[in-house]
């Protein structure tokens, strides 16, 4: 495999983890988060600091997971107090706060970011295999959660919180769980990103990136793991496959977001489901 292919596949793997983990929060549990990039960033910075200090790969991944998850649970407490639109604005705020805070911290490299992060020792293709393995594990975990009791409770909370509470589902606890799990996985993706680039700046974790992740979830079909995986792969490859798209990346992403919501609010998954229904009917 060429170095180019390896890097593309690595980025796809990272984006799949991010989109699937956001789908657990926003798709399964219905808590719209527009600040997923912040948790990704928290994980990346935790892993970077760990690697620079002690250069231990498993510990760095663990640090990334814990940093993302802890940060997420703190923000998850916000989801207990504020709902839907307010929560969306709060998570946008969390993203801006994260970027604004990191930019001014000299121990986090400030504007310059952290460079010279030691390599994992696995080589580029080893990194890629690690990323792919964890991406597959994330997808499998998401499919498992979706079919489990917890997935049912998430959906119940997402559909109608009061009805779920009436059924004896502790809505707050499940919302926190969704945030904790989703953001821990985003942190993990951040750790992998650090291994992959060995150089991080805070600009990689800005609000626009969070919007792109939300675009993957919505275009894939909010709540559908496979749809989201397909959209994450497609939207990562699109700028690579079509050169002009790279210059107009945001135009295309924004346009697709608008068109998909306007024409097919169910996303890819909704279209596929719809065509099956049609096939059966005809």
């Amino acid at each position, binding site marked *: 495999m060429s170095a180019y292919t390896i890097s593309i596949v690595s980025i796809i793997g990272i984006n799949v983890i991010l989109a699937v983990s956001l789908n657990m929060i926003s798709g399964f549990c219905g808590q*719209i988060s*527009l600040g997923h990039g912040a948790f990704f960033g928290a994980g990346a910075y935790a892993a970077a600091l760990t690697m620079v200090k002690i250069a231990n790969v498993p510990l760095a991944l663990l640090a990334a997971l814990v940093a993302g998850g802890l940060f997420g649970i703190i923000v998850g407490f*916000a989801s207990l*107090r*504020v*709902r*839907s*639109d*307010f929560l*969306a*604005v*709060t998570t*946008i*705020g*969390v993203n*801006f*706060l994260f*970027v*604004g*805070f990191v*930019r*001014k*911290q000299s121990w986090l490299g400030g504007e310059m970011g952290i460079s010279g992060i030691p390599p994992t020792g696995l080589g580029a293709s080893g990194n890629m295999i690690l990323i792919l393995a964890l991406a597959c594990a994330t997808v499998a975990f998401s499919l498992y959660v979706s079919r489990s009791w917890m997935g049912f409770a998430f959906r119940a909370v997402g559909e109608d919180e009061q009805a779920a509470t009436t059924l004896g589902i502790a809505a707050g606890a499940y919302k926190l769980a969704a945030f904790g799990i989703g953001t821990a996985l985003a942190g993990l993706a951040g750790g992998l990103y650090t291994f992959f680039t060995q150089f991080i700046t805070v600009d990689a974790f800005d*609000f*626009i990136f969070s*919007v792109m992740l*939300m*675009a993957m979830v*919505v275009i894939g079909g909010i709540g559908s793991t496979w749809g989201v995986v397909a959209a994450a792969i497609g939207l990562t490859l699109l700028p690579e496959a079509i050169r002009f798209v790279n210059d*107009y*990346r*945001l*135009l295309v*992403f*924004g*346009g*697709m*977001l*608008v068109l998909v*919501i*306007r024409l097919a*609010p169910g996303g890819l998954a909704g279209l596929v489901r719809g065509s099956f229904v049609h096939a059966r009917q005809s």
Partner: protein
Amino acid sequence: MYYIDLAVTGISFGCMYAMMSVGLTLVYGLLRILHVAHAAVFALGAYATVLAANATGSITLGFAAALIVTPLFGMAIYRLLYEPLLDYRPDVPMIASVGLLVLMQDAFRIVFGEQGVTFRQNALSFTTFDIAGVTVSAVQIAIVVTAAIIFLGLHLFTTRTRIGVGWRATVSKPRIAASFGIDPIKVRYLNFAIGSALAAVAGGLVALLDNLVDPGIGFVVSYKALAIIVLGGLGSVRGTLIASLVLGLVESYGTIFIGTWLDRDAIAFLALIILLMIRPQGFIGARTA
């Protein structure tokens, strides 16, 4: 004197935020949609102002052009984007709105260039007055005066005219207003037209202040405006005005006290998150969040 300078900056920014945010809070009050793409309207207003001013040589004509283009654009957003999505969960139109903002911002970059557009003649930007040792720029005065005139006019419009009263009635009790013969659809168009015009004026004034319109002009302001309308208690115009001025001042003073560890643009959200934790319904709003 330094502190008074900061107050002047804070108040002029606060007035600008107010003009930007009122349209946003009105849309929320009426439709329960977070109209994120309002920032694209703001940017469009700024571009229309600078381009028309450069073409005609008159800044007044620039603002006139912005006031014609943006209400149409705002109404088109309602008709083409939000109206078909009203039956879905409120986050569906919101995400569409985020998509539209990202799209418009990139479109501005592609059409008008990364560098942005500057005014060819903009004497106003460089005129400053010295009032008792405090330096005030002409544009800052223009912002405050414009905001005062606009909000006074808006107040008179909504309390003294039939259309204005009908508008307020529809925002607070849509069904009852409709039963009194007020057409709610017309009110929505009116709402988008006026809100967009306000944002356009704010955009044009910011363009004058910076003497530059670049593709990112609406971006940070828009998210601050979101923070402001939540701070003000979504849907409340009075709360929004208070929150705008408070934020303008807090930012202005905040830069010297906490600017060393936090970006200026993040202060709004720090305030927002602290307030939401204490009062989830905002400064004034009585509705539970």
